[in-house]
């Protein structure tokens, strides 16, 4: 017989030790020497999955249904194997977006929807808060069992409230949650002390269970085989070694249910996602967490069998774990087991309370307060105290409500079944959560429809009939269906019978939930923000995903002062200053010089606020001080849609390829022209050289030639030499112009005088070919130009025109007119004109219009190219066109002054 004061004292000492551990954890965190930043602590903290329902309840289930307790732990083993697609991704997203709870996560995914966050919170409170009562009830029942052994049946309601140790435990847990769960205003920051305490508790409950398991198996019996062989003699127990016919459906359903619950339970989300300090810790979880589950379950069946053999029906199977050592008088072991059960209950209560209070505060109360009392709130300088206050009050209320439940409905059917009922409630989050990180097309309306449909079915097929069985609703409702309609029987909806209530509810609620989620998502569209968030979440792990996985789509601006004031109000002066300074430091910006916040700063502020008040409220707050909106849907599509990105890239690539092709073609043409030019130039050089040489030879060989003929030959030699010189000069000019070594002498000159000089210089040419030159020269004021170069252009155009008209009947007209400040020079001929595709190419170097193979080229191909270079240097333009009556027209425009 263990005395009451000793148990109470030990319990309180144990709880005080938790405070000390958490205090050390927070202290070390403040010193920067984190005790939880390692994968093992992370995995141990996840073992909050194993509540007192596991610690005592598994043996209870095993005593009734054999291995039917096991699917609850096989499910998590399977789901962690998918960590790279589900949990690992959730952890990554949670860290990037400073997610504070599962409600925040779902709300953020679907366009920061406050409605979704609220719905998820309500479902969590309705479905999971009673689970906290179950934990307190377990403490109460086991405490009674220890104290009153061997009478284990006194109900809790007979104990006076003031002397109730459970109330004391509840108060301790509330104090713990308030002390270590609200240390930071930023709920996305880690509660290191709390996590360390939870990890410690996970060790205690595992050690305690292994101790009692080993005690039963090896002390009371002679090993596993001994227990099983003894049990095999009893057909009632031997039945537990196998699964019975109809149990398979329930088995599969429980595996699925526990997979979903492990992913979606708020307390699991808290330790797995929110408290994660390093995303690589998830790797260790993949095998270490299943190993923990295996270890804590290995003795369950032997203990259950031993309990049934020892007590039969005289002791509740849920108490075998405690009753076996008690009945043997092993007091120390009994206390250890009691502490193990206490730690299992305490860790669940603490984490669930913190998770629920964050959700209630950020996703239910704050959005309502910000709407309802917006004016009142805006006048307060610092809201961080209010935020923490709301969370603390919520924590106290959650735990005390849990205690009240135990007092009021402690022995009800509804509370006894709340374990799986709450799993089924959490599973309703799974479609929106898992679908949301895998399927971009899922919409807010789809998630809302799925959650509401699943929740409604869960209520109707599980919670309400449980109430009915507890006597709070007419029991006919559960047994005969709503209004006596058999078709609507809650445990056999639409005639689906023969399943356990949980399996039945899971089938229908998932059908309704997933069905509504998918159907409505397919039929509705995204807003711009939803689209952005969907891509950020689904593509979170993609290396080429959106930069840093954070939304940078604010188009609007806000003043830095307003933004900072907003942050100060919610996260306090220190927090806001630190975040702003860090932001500015990373970018090398002096905040004092910055008045308008750029989108990056707005985004930083929104994420900072999201950590404190949740994503949805943060968005509303930032929008209230920020002008402008997120970018439009079209731009979002453009930015985010990988498909369109790829298309854009390939289009750019195609354009670049086409450009390259063009350039290559052009290069080939130029190369070809150069070859042509060299052969032309050589030809042109050789022609005068040949005639000079042959006439010189004739003169040399015939000293007695008649003087007239000699004169004629000599004039040919001189003419050909001149032609040779001209040609060489042109080539040299071109080379100089091209290399920029040409010297320019810009002086004032009269354009008309220069044109007249050019006409005089080409007079002989026109006379020789019998070509008429008509002139129409305006008297223009002097302008700054290089006289020689200008004349060269006019000469080139005139001699070019002469070449392409018929000798005798050819006519060339030259016009000079004002063109704004500058001049316009027009040279037209009545020749054959230019092929239309040569109008631009005619100015290319080396190009000679006409087929060089058949027609003898008439020029060097350099005159027009040189003219174009000169005109452009002087700031003008030159172009060719075909005149209305045929013939080519060359036009030059020049400004009054060349560009400097």
């Amino acid at each position, binding site marked *: 017989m263990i005395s009451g004061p000793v148990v109470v004292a030990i319990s309180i000492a144990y709880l005080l030790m938790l405070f000390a551990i958490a205090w050390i954890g927070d202290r070390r965190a403040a010193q920067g020497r984190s005790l939880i930043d390692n994968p093992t602590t992370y995995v141990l903290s996840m073992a909050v999955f194993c509540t007192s329902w596991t610690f005592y309840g598994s043996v209870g289930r095993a005593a009734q249904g054999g*291995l039917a307790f*096991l*699917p609850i732990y*096989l499910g998590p*083993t*399977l789901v*962690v*194997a*998918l*960590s*790279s*697609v589900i949990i690992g991704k959730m952890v990554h997203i949670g860290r990037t977006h400073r997610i504070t709870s599962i409600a925040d996560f779902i709300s953020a995914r679907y366009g920061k929807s406050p409605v979704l966050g609220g719905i998820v919170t309500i479902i969590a409170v309705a479905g999971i808060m009673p689970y906290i009562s179950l934990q307190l009830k377990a403490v109460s029942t086991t405490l009674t069992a220890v104290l009153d052994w061997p009478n284990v049946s006194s109900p809790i309601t007979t104990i006076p409230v003031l002397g109730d140790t459970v109330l004391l435990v509840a108060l301790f847990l509330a104090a713990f949650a308030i002390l270590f769960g609200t240390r930071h205003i930023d709920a996305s920051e880690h509660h290191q002390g709390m996590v360390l305490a939870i990890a410690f508790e996970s060790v205690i409950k595992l050690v305690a269970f292994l101790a009692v398991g080993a005690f039963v198996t090896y002390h009371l019996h002679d090993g*596993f*085989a*001994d227990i*099983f*062989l003894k049990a*095999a003699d009893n057909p009632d127990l*031997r039945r537990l*070694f*196998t*699964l019975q016919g109809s149990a*398979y459906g329930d*088995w*599969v359903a429980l*595996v699925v249910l526990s997979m979903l619950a492990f992913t979606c339970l708020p307390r699991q989300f808290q330790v797995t996602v929110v408290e994660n300090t390093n995303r690589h810790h998830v*790797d*260790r979880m*993949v*095998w270490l967490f*299943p*190993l923990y589950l*295996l270890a804590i379950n*290995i003795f369950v*069946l032997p203990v259950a069998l031993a309990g049934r053999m020892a007590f039969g029906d005289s002791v509740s199977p849920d108490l075998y774990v405690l009753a076996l050592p008690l009945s043997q008088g092993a007091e120390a072991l009994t206390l250890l087991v009691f502490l193990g059960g206490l730690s299992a209950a305490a860790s669940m209560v603490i984490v669930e309370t913190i998770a629920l209070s964050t959700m209630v505060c950020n996703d239910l109360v704050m959005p309502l307060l910000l709407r309802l009392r917006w004016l009142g709130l805006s006048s307060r300088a610092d809201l961080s105290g209010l935020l923490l206050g709301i969370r603390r009050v919520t924590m106290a209320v959650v735990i005390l409500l849990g205690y009240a439940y135990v007092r009021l409905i402690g022995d009800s059917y509804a509370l006894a079944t709340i374990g799986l009922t709450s799993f089924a409630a959490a599973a309703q989050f799974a479609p929106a959560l898992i679908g949301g990180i895998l399927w971009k097309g899922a919409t807010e309306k789809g998630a809302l429809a799925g959650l509401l449909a699943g929740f409604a079915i869960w209520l109707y097929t599980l919670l309400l009939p449980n109430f009915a069985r507890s006597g709070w609703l007419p029991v006919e409702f559960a047994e005969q269906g709503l209004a006596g309609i058999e078709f609507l029987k809650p445990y056999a909806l639409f005639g689906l019978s023969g399943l356990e209530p949980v399996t039945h509810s899971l089938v229908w609620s998932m059908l309704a939930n997933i069905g509504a989620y998918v159907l409505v998502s397919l039929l509705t569209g995204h807003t711009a923000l939803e689209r952005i968030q969907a891509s950020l979440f689904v593509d979170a792990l993609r*290396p080429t995903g959106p930069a840093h996985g954070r939304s940078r789509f604010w188009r609007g601006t806000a003043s830095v002062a307003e933004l900072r004031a907003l942050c100060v109000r919610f996260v306090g002066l220190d927090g806001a200053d630190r975040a702003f300074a860090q932001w500015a430091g990373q970018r090398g910006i002096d905040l004092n010089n910055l008045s308008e916040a750029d989108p990056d700063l707005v985004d930083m502020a929104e994420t900072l606020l999201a950590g404190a008040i949740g994503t949805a409220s943060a968005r509303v707050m930032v929008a209230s001080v920020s002008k402008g909106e997120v970018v439009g849907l079209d731009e979002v599509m453009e930015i985010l849609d990988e498909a369109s990105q790829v298309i854009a890239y390939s289009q750019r690539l195609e354009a670049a390829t086409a450009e390259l092709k063009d350039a290559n073609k052009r290069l080939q043409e130029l190369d070809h022209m150069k070859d042509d030019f060299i052969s032309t130039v050589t030809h042109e050089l050789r022609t005068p050289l040949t005639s000079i040489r042959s006439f010189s030879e004739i003169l040399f060989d015939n000293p007695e030639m008649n003087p007239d003929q000699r004169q004629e030959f000599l004039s040919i030699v001189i003419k050909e030499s001149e032609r040779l010189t001209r040609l060489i000069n042109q080539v040299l000019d071109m080379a100089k112009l091209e290399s920029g070594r040409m010297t320019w002498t810009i002086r004032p000159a009269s354009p008309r005088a220069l044109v007249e000089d050019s006409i005089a210089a080409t007079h002989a040419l026109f006379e020789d070919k019998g070509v008429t030159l008509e002139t129409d020269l305006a008297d223009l004021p002097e302008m700054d130009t290089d006289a020689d170069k200008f004349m060269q252009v006019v000469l080139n155009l005139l001699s070019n025109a002469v070449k392409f008209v018929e000798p005798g009947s050819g006519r060339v007209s030259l016009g000079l007119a004002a063109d704004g400040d500058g001049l316009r020079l027009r040279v037209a001929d009545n020749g054959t004109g230019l092929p239309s595709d040569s109008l631009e190419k005619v100015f290319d170097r080396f190009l000679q219009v006409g087929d060089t193979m058949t027609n003898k080229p008439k020029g060097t191909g350099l005159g027009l190219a040189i003219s174009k270079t000169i005109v452009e240097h002087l700031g003008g333009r030159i172009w060719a066109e075909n005149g209305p009556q045929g013939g080519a027209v060359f036009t030059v425009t020049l400004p009054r002054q060349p560009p400097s």
Partner: protein
Amino acid sequence: MSRRLRLTRPSGKPERLAAAFLLGLALFLPPLLNVASRDALVGGIPVLVLWLFGGWLALIVVLALVVEGKPDDDGRPR
């Protein structure tokens, strides 16, 4: 100096973990479960208990080998 080029394996950790998940499904769910659920004891232990806990442990070993394997075994950057 010549170095033999080796193609990295086309499947990295995520794929191997998914394969382990499928193995787990096969182990823990019917119809293989029906096969194991028989009224017999092997070495004093019920067949179903051996099957489930043995399979569970084997799966954990596989998972551990996959995630704790050498990083260069990993076919793709993570």
